[in-house]
């Protein structure tokens, strides 16, 4: 799997990206979006909305569900991005296994453009874009978590509209944490580096992350009440403006090893 991750090309995903910070072990979108299964056995249902760079005609809306059986994890999601002229609909599936010390997963996504109304006949025509990726994480100590995610190792059909490369990261701490992320170079750039911190003041959790190429930042806030978690995230870019993400998740945890 490590070899597959290293060979991964620039990847396309983010159809199911929610408002959680990077490297979170509890992110409901981790398995669908990054092939990183949650450490805890959970049953989740989540919905999110993303407005990219303030463009009303470029929004992503997604819903997803996830479940577990012993160490096995699975997730299913549906998302839609953009208005019909430019946009697409995605169906995602994630499957993996995890313990409290390590986890690995696979993800797959099928996209279909929205430039024509859906019909039964069209559902069986070619033109879809398909991608599959993999990810893994491991606890290197009591509170040190390392991960690698290549959301798109294999592709077929129409090219994905969004590009994201192989990502490597290390996170120190649990709810009060700091992390570093490295993104592999893409055509025309030399990759990207990110540094983030997270603090919890129950029931709130706040986090911030700085990225380069170009220099920019993200901030997030989430609040949990019982099984419900509401989160918001803002990515600020010096030229493009701001991307705003909102998510609402319901999660019921159960121990993977009772």
């Amino acid at each position, binding site marked *: 799997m490590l070899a597959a991750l290293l060979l991964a090309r620039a990847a396309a995903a983010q159809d199911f990206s929610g408002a959680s910070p990077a490297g979170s072990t509890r992110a409901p979108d981790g398995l669908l979006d990054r092939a990183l299964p949650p450490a805890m056995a959970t049953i989740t249902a989540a919905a999110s909305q993303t407005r*990219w760079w303030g463009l009303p005609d470029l929004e992503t809306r997604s819903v997803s569900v996830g479940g577990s059986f012993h160490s096995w994890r699975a997730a299913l999601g549906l998302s839609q991005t953009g208005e019909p002229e430019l946009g697409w609909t995605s169906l995602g599936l994630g499957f993996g296994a995890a313990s409290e010390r390590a986890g690995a997963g696979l993800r797959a996504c099928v996209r279909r453009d929205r430039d024509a109304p859906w019909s039964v006949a069209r559902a069986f025509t070619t033109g879809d874009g398909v991608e599959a990726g993999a990810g893994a994480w491991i606890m290197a100590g009591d509170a040190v978590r390392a991960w690698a995610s290549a959301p798109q190792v294999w592709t077929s059909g129409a090219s994905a*509209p969004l590009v994201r490369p192989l990502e490597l990261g290390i996170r120190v701490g649990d709810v009060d944490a700091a992390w570093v992320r490295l993104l592999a170079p893409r055509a025309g750039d030399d990759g990207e580096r990110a540094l983030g911190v997270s603090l919890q003041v129950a029931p709130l959790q706040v986090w911030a992350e700085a990225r380069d190429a170009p220099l920019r930042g993200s901030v997030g806030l989430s609040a949990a009440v019982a099984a419900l978690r509401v989160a918001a995230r803002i990515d600020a870019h010096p030229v493009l403006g701001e991307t705003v993400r909102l998510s609402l998740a319901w999660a019921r945890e159960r121990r993977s090893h009772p």
Partner: protein
Amino acid sequence: MSALSLVVAVALNCAPAGHPFVTEVYYDAPGDDTGQEFVELWNDSDSTRVLTGLRLQAGDGAGPGRWTTKWTGGPGDAVKPHSRFVIGGAAVSPRPDVVLTLDLQNGPDGFRLLWPDGATEVVGWGALEFAEYYCGAPAPDVPGGSSLARIPDRASTGSNAGDFHPAEPTPGFANQRSVDATLLRHRSALEPEQPSPGGSATLEVVLVNAGATAWGVDDAALRVTSELLGAPVSLNAPAVAPGETTRVSIPLAVLREGRGAFAASVHLVGDEASANDADTLLARVGAGPLQVAEIQFHPAAAEGEWVEVRNTLHAPLALEGFKLGDHAGAGGSIEAGPPLAADSLAVLAQDPTALRMAYPALDGTRVRRVSPWAALNNSDDATGLADQVVLAETDGVPVDRVGYSASGIAAGVTLERAGDTWRPSPTAGGTPLAPPRPVEPVAGGFRADPRRLRTDGETVNFAWELPWGAAKVTLELYDMEGHRQRRLAGPVDSGVHGERPVTLDALAPGLYLAVLRAESADGTFTRVTPLRVDGTRP
């Protein structure tokens, strides 16, 4: 010279020995030839030659034997040693020795001299069919305004084609002089074309050494006189070798406002021809009475191109006294009509009917047709300019000249003068016969068409509206992750409305963000629009 070579030379000579011979003929003057034609003879001997009984006959090359006697030498007609004898019309200057209307044909034709002793000399030009009208081979037919001159003056090649060549008319003077400084006519230019009152400019003249003798520095002098100058300007001319041409810049200072003529002349000791020593340039110092106010060079509808002008005088102005054109010059005549009132606007139109249909409220008396209309260019050349709008008086005196760039200007948007600057009009379709309207802040917009590119290399037309009348605009492309991919255009000047076609080649499939960044003195402005390129990544 041996006897044999003498015999050969005489046999090859088109002019009979012992007689004056033809050195120049001028048969095609610009416009009406009447009174301007002449034939010049030269007596190259040391004794006076009597012309009594000599007949000059014009030949019509259209058929054989068509000779008409134009002149016969009288008892008193003679030509002194080493002198010239001109037979020509009343308009020839200096006055010919014999004044008459020759009525020579413009070719293929010829004429001949019949001497009382039976000797004959014939000169023919053009593609003559019958051998009686030329000697050896006919000389070339010359363009209007040029004479057919024997060069050098003693040329004797045995052929009209070898002896005679097109030249500036020089009646009574040598065709190739020993000492002759010449200013080429209609070649002088002023830089800048319309200098400011009290300012300076450079008059460029073209100086030619048309003689066979070189002159050195300080041998020749140039002089410029004009009512636009406080005093005549003189300077030494550079050294010029025989046959060489050089451009000389003459600095002019403290220019007086108005229209007038710069008369340039060259003075060289021993100059054998004074008629070609001067050139005159009509010019204007300061603003003209008519000012270009607005330019529609790429109409979006069918109203045709038009140019709005303003009468800057405090008195009515007759528009038909002006001409309009493009970078090639003001060649379009303006149709006559009522004088344009003081400080008023008029529209000079390619198609006044179509323009009035597009703008029914226009005052028809102030919309004038220009013909021929010089189509104004819609795209910039390598200099960064698309074209020029040139206004001049009918005699050529400059009035106004405006160069413009079409870069970033959407179809249908006019360029208008706002004070001392030019800007794209904030009013769609422009403001014919109305002053520029103030720029009203607009919400601003940025669009791409098409937004979805089916293939790599497709052209996308970007269009925008800005909240300011003038700004520098840059177009860039980012990917969805916020990484800058490339600069698409700019920075370019833009008004309120702008557009720019961009070909997106070598672009990987995916979703991109096209970014408009505008900067002006009033702030910055950024807009983003998504683009999608279809395809399959390799």
